[in-house]
């Protein structure tokens, strides 16, 4: 099942999308940067992913973040040019949301026909709850999982659905890049949810690396528990109600509260993000079937089995929203907010 190595000189552009295990593969590539170089593979820059370069190339930064100058992208391109590496791999889930004109220039800048695209398609029963959780963290989502699922699954007229499907719809993703990259240079990895090494093995094959070279890196973008997500969601609601600016949110919630929430060890009674509610199962099964068909009909290389997308969705018991939250978590969140401000006021103060 392993794919053929890409031709020497290829640039492998990993576009995510969001919540498909990108952090894990990026951390692994980051950690093995020197090993990759020894095998003639360049992973540009020095950070876990080509984050700022991708923000510049896509032409948008996350909410509340400063815009990134195009120079970040050009600097990466110079590195790609000068390296003379046999193969290059560039990874950022933010490439997912590139508008058509940005897709064109990204591909052209990276060398046109040298570029191969890889994307990961996950079963919806896992992807949906995880995406909701991510939205609460970074897109100031205020809907509950249940409310958000109704928007995404049942309200074609809303804007939450289209946003999700724009970034996660198989046809949407493939077509966005197929306009400039022939389909035989696009690889779809159908996520094997039971094999955490699948992406590492696939990247090794594509990049001509020895099997087993990529080992898990440090840190994973683990999902917040339901309790932590709910706390954050409620803060999002209140912040909306009060009209906090994006920059304040970014500074105090992301720069403060979220870090401390992440660092706090699991508390007794905390619950994971639940699976799909029973009402959603039929619709998700239907969509999963469509996604499997779309992968089969895509004309792209496929790693893994499209039938995995068509497996019966796992449902969870309807989870009540946590009406109580661990005091340790709440205190960590308050301390995080305060710490963010104190750090700004005395820049020599380090994060704990």
């Amino acid at each position, binding site marked *: 099942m392993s794919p053929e190595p890409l031709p020497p000189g290829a640039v492998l552009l990993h576009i995510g999308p969001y919540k498909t295990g990108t952090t894990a593969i990026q951390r692994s590539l980051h950690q093995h940067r020197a090993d990759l170089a020894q095998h003639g593979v360049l992973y540009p820059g020095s950070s876990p992913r080509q984050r700022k370069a991708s923000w510049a190339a896509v032409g948008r930064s996350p909410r509340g973040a400063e815009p990134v100058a195009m120079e970040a992208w050009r600097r990466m391109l110079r590195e790609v040019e000068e390296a003379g590496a046999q193969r290059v791999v560039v990874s950022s889930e933010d490439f997912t949301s590139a508008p058509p004109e940005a897709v064109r220039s990204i591909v052209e800048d990276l060398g046109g026909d040298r570029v191969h695209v890889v994307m990961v398609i996950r079963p919806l029963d896992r992807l949906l709850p995880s995406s909701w959780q991510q939205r609460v963290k970074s897109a100031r989502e205020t809907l509950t999982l249940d409310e958000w699922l109704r928007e995404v699954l049942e309200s074609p007229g809303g804007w939450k659905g289209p946003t999700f499907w724009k970034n996660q719809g198989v046809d949407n993703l493939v077509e966005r890049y197929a306009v400039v990259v022939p389909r035989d240079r696009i690889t779809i990895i159908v996520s094997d949810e039971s094999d955490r090494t699948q992406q590492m093995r696939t990247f090794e094959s594509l990049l001509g690396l020895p099997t087993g070279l990529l080992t898990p890196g440090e840190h994973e973008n683990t999902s917040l528990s339901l309790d932590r997500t709910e706390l954050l969601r409620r803060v999002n609601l209140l912040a909306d109600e009060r009209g906090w600016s994006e*920059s304040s949110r970014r*500074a105090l919630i992301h720069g403060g509260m979220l870090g401390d929430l992440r660092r706090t060890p699991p508390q007794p009674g905390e619950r994971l993000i639940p699976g799909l509610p029973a009402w959603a199962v039929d619709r998700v099964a239907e969509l999963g079937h469509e996604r499997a068909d779309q992968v089969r009909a895509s004309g792209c290389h496929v790693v893994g089995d499209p039938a995995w997308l068509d497996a019966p969705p796992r449902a969870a018991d309807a989870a009540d929203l946590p009406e109580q939250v661990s005091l340790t978590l709440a205190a960590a969140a308050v301390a995080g907010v305060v710490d963010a401000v104190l750090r700004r006021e005395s820049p020599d103060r380090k994060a704990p």
Partner: protein
Amino acid sequence: MVTQPELLPDRAVLVHIGPYKTGTTAIQTSLHEHRKELRAHAVTYPGDYHRQMRPSWALLGRSRVGEPAVPEREWDAMVAEVRAAQGRVVISSEDFASARPHHAQRLVDELGPDRVHVLIVARRLDKLLPSAWQERVKSVNETRTYDAWLREVLSVERASDAARTFWHNHGLKTLVERWRAVLPADRVLVLVNDEEDRRLQAATFEQLLGLPDGALTPGALANTSLSMERIELCRQVNLAVEARGWVGSRTLNTPRRAMLTGLRSAPLRDFESRIPALPSWTGPRLVELSDERARTVAGSGVRVIGDPDLLRYTPDPDAPDLSEPPSVLPTEAAANAIEHALAGMLRRQERQERQGRQERRARPRAVAASPSPPVDPLTRVTSRAMLREVARRQRARLRRGGTSGRTGRGDPRDRSDP
């Protein structure tokens, strides 16, 4: 001498010194809200705040943690108002309870050695202790659990800061002696609180000041207790403050007060608990201390209103030991606390920015000498955001039909005890 309260002389100045946690907020807000009625009966309640907090701080030379002392002129201004007042005057600030002897002397000298009457409220120790612990956790970064704090305060040695502070403010013997040293016995009043009679304090003030019976109806505010869960959040934040080395940072005052407002704004959930009754291990010691307090008041020689025996304590032999602190709190309370802390931080930064602008306007040359720092994006938008916030919250409250229980106002109950 056990007496009923009697009308004070025409130009008496009644100084109510608390102490803390004896129902001061209730009587103060009532006095504050009845200023018009007070005036109609020639009674002056100086200033325009619900208590004479800042003048009392000016006298005592104190302030909120890390902030400069309140200027003396605020005390002087109140003294001038008292001297100019016709009729009776009433002043109330629980901070006077922590006055040192020279403060007490100055208070009497300046407000009128022949006019001042001091009123001390004596409350049962078992009622004071839970409130006092809670207040410390809310206001002075107390990190001890209730049980640990009780052990310190009830210890014979009274060696820790917790014990010293408590007995400095609540030791009836020293409190009476401190004021007895600067006033004749008949102008020191001890009101023994009756925990069963919620109108006792208001009625006493009415009689002392010559107000009609029932004039002092309850005010809108009472310094209500938080649930154990919410107090525990404050305690855990205090632990974080300590662990991160922020103790004494004035930056914390605003978000801390804001956090308390947020904590109060969520309705009580059924799993929450009140501060429990005193555990049985405190019984014998509390009986001993309470008897002593009753004897102290009875034998004080000053004017006692009410029955000193009400200060005695009957322990509950079946009172359970204190359990571990709670581990969860209502998500709504937590979110409100966090968001208010965040809002408090932003408000504070906005205030600083405004002050900075005023200072720069006042000293145009200094601007050239020291260029202003670049405007922080965090502060740039806040004034508009604050205005929007007010409008949004009004709308949101209407939408929700006012069910959220948010008060939407600053909290005048905030204080930082010594």
